[in-house]
């Protein structure tokens, strides 16, 4: 742009009120602390949730009921009658903790695909936030904390409903709640990064059909991965869902192969969260600060 296109119009306003203190005033403002910034971001997402929670809460209660009906009464009675359960457990007790983890994956996917794309593209709320003192890391942290809240709500409801209908053998089931949240985050954070890298929502078709659905089927949710061909098993190890399923099942049933294995699962899930965070921060920054 050449300077000849620059035009200054007449002065219309006098200097402002000056000495008024605080962040509402004209002067230099005290910077926001990081908890303040993150609280402001979370505040936005909770305002959105206040408008939409009724719709989502019905689904949160309905989905465990559907699973219990299909797996417990339907498939479960068949498995128990013909095979005597799985590894000494009734099929219901085998499958329900795993479904908690699987359900977390689905909730996480719902919160990190179209939702996130919408804040980039459709209502541009991320960009609106960046015109304020907020930074990319605040936005990412605030939004992910909201996802944690959704995961915790969904998992708690699922566990409570499933427990009410005899889906668990004991109090170890309570561990399924934090395990479910961690499993969900192991999906949400990398998928936040993926979404930031996508200009359109076309990629989600592949993500859901080629990643999420196969994972649900082949991560030991409905049958132990030992039933799979040997060459397929390493794929399960490389995905977050299998680690979440194994952890949740071990915690709920008390049947754990070794404490070391449990920590390996936790470490694997944390690695997905950590690597996902680094990628997400980089890709969010690249997309929003151009």
């Amino acid at each position, binding site marked *: 742009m050449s300077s000849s296109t620059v035009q200054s*119009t007449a002065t219309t306003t006098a200097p402002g009120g000056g000495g008024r203190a605080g962040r509402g005033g004209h002067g230099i403002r005290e910077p926001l602390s990081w908890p303040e910034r993150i609280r402001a971001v979370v505040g936005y997402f909770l305002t959105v949730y206040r408008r939409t929670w009724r719709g989502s809460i019905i689904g949160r209660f309905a989905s465990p009921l559907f699973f219990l009906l299909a797996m417990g009464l339907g498939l479960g009675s068949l498995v128990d009658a013909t095979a005597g359960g799985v590894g000494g457990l009734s099929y219901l007790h085998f499958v329900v903790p795993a479904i908690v983890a699987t359900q977390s994956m689905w909730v996480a996917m719902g919160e990190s695909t179209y939702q996130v794309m919408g804040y980039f593209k459709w209502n541009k709320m991320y960009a609106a936030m960046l015109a304020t003192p907020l930074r990319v890391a605040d936005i990412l942290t605030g939004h992910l904390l909201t996802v944690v809240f959704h995961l915790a709500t969904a998992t708690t409801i699922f566990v409570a409903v499933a427990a009410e209908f005899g889906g668990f053998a004991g109090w170890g089931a309570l561990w399924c709640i934090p395990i479910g949240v961690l499993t969900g985050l192991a999906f949400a954070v990398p998928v936040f990064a993926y979404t930031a890298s996508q200009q359109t929502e076309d990629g989600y078709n592949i993500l859901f059909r080629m990643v999420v659905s196969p994972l649900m089927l082949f991560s030991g949710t409905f049958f132990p991965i030992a039933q799979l061909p040997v060459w397929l098993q390493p794929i399960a190890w490389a995905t977050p869902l299998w680690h979440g399923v194994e952890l949740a099942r071990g915690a709920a049933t008390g049947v754990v192969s070794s404490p070391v294995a449990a920590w390996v699962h936790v470490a694997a899930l944390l690695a997905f969260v950590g690597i996902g965070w680094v990628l997400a921060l980089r890709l969010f920054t690249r997309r929003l600060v151009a």
Partner: protein
Amino acid sequence: MLVSARGLTKTFGDFVAVDGIDVEVRRGEAFGFLGPNGAGKSSTMRMIGCVSPATGGELRIFGQDPAVDGPAIRARLGSCPQADMLDEELTVQENLWIYGRYFGLTKAQTRKRATELLDFAQLTDRRGDKVEPLSGGMKRRLTIARSLINNPRTAPARRADHRPGPAGAAHPLGPALPAQTSRRDPHHHDALHG
């Protein structure tokens, strides 16, 4: 000095969007960038708004460097973007309340300021309505009102659809408002249009 730029440059790959401009804006000025499409007005305004880093040259807002003090500068700016960027599923006043919190205003400060700005933008009677069904002009007024929530030192606005003129001289929102109205922004500000 509110804005000073020397040799300000913005490139996207090989494409040069802003090619070394020098500009100075002083306190009390209403300043506008005019130019044909693709001249680099928006890119310049995004750099001044500290949402886009300069590729070259020197830029100071309130004497501060956006590359170092971006958040502190943005705390004092009232940025009115080209696109409205409103959450249309929320109400008019919720859009203001949320925004005030981003600047660290207390809940009470935000609500008070929102009430003043809704009056200023003549949206008081629509405050509890969702944004989505509002007319384009009303949404624009809400976006302008929102950009003033932090009582900014300088208000950069892209799109000169509310420039002061004879018809709009009585009201800072000018032609963005229905005719024959005269209300003053409770806290005047310096305006920068691009």
